[in-house]
C-alpha cells in the first residue's frame, strides 16, 4: 500500500474542511495512532454512523474532533464512564475511547479498572507518551523512574504503572501494546481489539518530544522513535529472554485474549429472559 493510497483512506474520515490545522506538535505520535485507528475501522468496514469515539482530556482528547464519526470529548479521566453509558444505551454501536496515560491511569484509573472488571464492550486506546503534554510536561503515572519533568525537576521518584499488567489483572478480554514506530503491528492489534467483544485495551506508545523528550536526553523526535525501535520486542521473544536481559526491553504484541461475554451481552441475556417472546429482539 503506497502512502498516497493510505492518505486517501484517511481523508475520507477526517473532518478536513472543518477543524484544521490540528493542535499537535511536530514529531508527535498521536496522529499516527489516529491514522491507524481510521485504517482499522476502514478495514473492518464499519459505517461511520456506527462508530462512537469518546475521548478524555489532553492532547489525545483532542483527536476526537478531527474524525467524522460520532465524537464525544468528555471530562478528564471520564471517557470510559461516558462510553459505558453509550454502549449500554445502544449496544449496536462500536464505542472506542481515546485516552492519554494521565487520563486513563491517573484520574481515570478507577474507571479503567472497573470497565475491565465489568468487561463492557468498549475498545480503550491508551496513548502513552509518559507525560502530561497539554498542561506543560508534568509527571504522569507512566513517567519512568528517574525522568526529569516539571513536577519532578530532581528526577521521578515513584514507580510507573504497567498498563498491560493493570488491564490484565482487572479482567479485560483483550490486552495489547504497540508503538507508533511499529505501525503495521499497531494496526493489526487495533483491528483485533475493535473486533473482539468485551473490553479491549490497546496501549499505544507514542512520543512527546516537546514535553518529555527534550528534557530527557532525546535530542530530536527521531531519537524517540529510535528508542522505540531499540527497546520494543515481540512479547513471544520477550518471554524467552532470561530475566537479566529483560530489563530495559518493552514487550509489544497481544498479552491477553479472552472470550468472556461483554457486560452488555450478559445484561441483554438477562433482559430477554424476562420479556415475553412477542417483545423479544429489542435492541
Amino acid at each position: 500500500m503506497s502512502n498516497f493510497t493510505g492518505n486517501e483512506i484517511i481523508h475520507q474520515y477526517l473532518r478536513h474542511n472543518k477543524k484544521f490545522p490540528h493542535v499537535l506538535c511536530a514529531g508527535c505520535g498521536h496522529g499516527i495512532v489516529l491514522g491507524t485507528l481510521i485504517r482499522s475501522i476502514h478495514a473492518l468496514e464499519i459505517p461511520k454512523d456506527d462508530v462512537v469515539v469518546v475521548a478524555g482530556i489532553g492532547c489525545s482528547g483532542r483527536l476526537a474532533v478531527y474524525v467524522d464519526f460520532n465524537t464525544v470529548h468528555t471530562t478528564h479521566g471520564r471517557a470510559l464512564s461516558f462510553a459505558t453509558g453509550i454502549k449500554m444505551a445502544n449496544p449496536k454501536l462500536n464505542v472506542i475511547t481515546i485516552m492519554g496515560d494521565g487520563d486513563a491511569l491517573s484520574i481515570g484509573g478507577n474507571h479503567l479498572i472497573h470497565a475491565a472488571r465489568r468487561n463492557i464492550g468498549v475498545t480503550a486506546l491508551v496513548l502513552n507518551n509518559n507525560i502530561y503534554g497539554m498542561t506543560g510536561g508534568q509527571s504522569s503515572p507512566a513517567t519512568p523512574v528517574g525522568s526529569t519533568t516539571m513536577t519532578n525537576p530532581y528526577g521521578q521518584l515513584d514507580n510507573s504503572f504497567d498498563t498491560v499488567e493493570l488491564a490484565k489483572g482487572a479482567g479485560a478480554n483483550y490486552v495489547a501494546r504497540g508503538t507508533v514506530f511499529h505501525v503495521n503491528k499497531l494496526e493489526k492489534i487495533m483491528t483485533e481489539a475493535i473486533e473482539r467483544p468485551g473490553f479491549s485495551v490497546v496501549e499505544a506508545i507514542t512520543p512527546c518530544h516537546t514535553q518529555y523528550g527534550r528534557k530527557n536526553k532525546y535530542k530530536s523526535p527521531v531519537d524517540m522513535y529510535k528508542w522505540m525501535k531499540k527497546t520494543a520486542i515481540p512479547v513471544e521473544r520477550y518471554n524467552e529472554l532470561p530475566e537479566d536481559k529483560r530489563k530495559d526491553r518493552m514487550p509489544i504484541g497481544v498479552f491477553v485474549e479472552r472470550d468472556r461475554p461483554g457486560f452488555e451481552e450478559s445484561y441483554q441475556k438477562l433482559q430477554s429472559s424476562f420479556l415475553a417472546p412477542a417483545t423479544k429482539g429489542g435492541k
Partner: protein
Amino acid sequence: MPRRKKRKEIFALGNEAVVEGALLAGCSFFGGYPITPSSEIMEIMAARLPKIEDGVFIQLEDEIASMGAIIGGSLAGRKAMTATSGPGFSLMQENLGYAIMAEAPLVLVNVMRGGPSTGLPTCPAQGDVQQARWGTHGDHPIIVLSASNVQECLDMTITAFNMAEKYRTPVILLLDEVTAHTREKIELPNEGEYEVFSRTVPSMPPEWYKPYEETVRGVPPMPAIGSGYRFHVTGLTHDRNGFPTQRPEEVVELMDRIHRKIDQFFYDIQLVEEIQTDDAEVVVIAYGSVARSAELAVQQARENGVKAGLLKLKTLFPYPRRHTEKVLAKAKTLVVPEMNMGQMSREVKRVNMGQAAVRTINRVDGQIVTPAEILKVIMQG
C-alpha cells in the same frame, strides 16, 4: 382534571414514588452508586428496569462514573437519571457542568442528608440548596425542583423529566430524608392524565444539521448518537457546529443562549403552590418536608385570627421571583423556615429588598422543623 377512570393507589415511600414517576415519564436508563438515604431509588430501579424493554440499569464504580454513564445514555437517546445524597452529589458536580455545557437532558435526584462531609447519615437536612444552584464551576443556568410529600415526589419527577427534555438541560430534584422515607398513600395517574415531553429530534437531513444552532426557543434539536447525525460533543466552549472555539463572539453567543433558554421560560419553569396567600399579612415561604409543617402552622395561625399564608416552592431555581413579589404586595412579614443555616432565605431577601420583615427559622441538628416552631414565629408577626 376530571376523573375518567379510578386511579391506582399505592402505599409508597417517597423514593418509590420517584421511581414510579420516572418510569411514567419514560425513563429507561439508570446509572448510580448506592448512598443512604437515596438507595431505595437505585434498588427499585435495579429490579424494575431489566424487565422493561430497552430498560438499562447499571451500577457504577462511583458517583463520578454514574454521571458520566447517564450523560452517555442521554446522548444515545435515552431518558436517563441517577440518584444520590450529599457526598455523592459533590462528586457529581464536574460532570453535571458537562451536561449543562453539552445540553444533555437528565434528571439527578439528591436526597439531602445532614452535612457538610459525611455529616449526618441519615438525618434530614436541606443543606445542598445553594450547592444545587452553584455547585459546578462556571456561570451556568440550572433547574432545581423539590417535593414536600410522596405524591409530589411522583409528580415532580415527571415534571423534572419533562423540563429536562424540553430545555435540554440537567434537572436536579432535591428531596430531603423525611420526604424520601415517608410512606403514604399516593395515586398513580392514568395514561393521558399527565404530560410526557420528549426531546425534539432534528427533521432536516444530517448534512444540514448544526448541533448547537440558535433556535427560537434557544433549544437546538437533539438526535441520538447512532441515528445518522454525526457531530461533536464537548465540554469546551463550542461554536454552532459543536467545535471548540475561543472567539469572544462565539463564546458569548453560546453562554447567552444556554442562559436564555431557561430564563425566558420562567413562567413554565417556576412552580409554586399558593395556600391562602391572597390576603396574607404573614407569608411562610417553605419547600420540602418543611412546607408540610408550614401548612399546618398557617392553618393554626388562621384559627388564631392571623392572616397567614404559605408560598410553597416547588421550583427552587430559577428562584420564583414573580410569585414572591406578588405576596409582597400584602405581606408585612415573610417567614422562611429551613433545615439549613439560611440558604433559601438569601434568595427571599434578595427579592424582598427590605420591603417586608424576613424572619428565618434554621435547624441543622438533623431534626425536622415542627409546626409549633413555625407557628410561634408567625404569631410574633
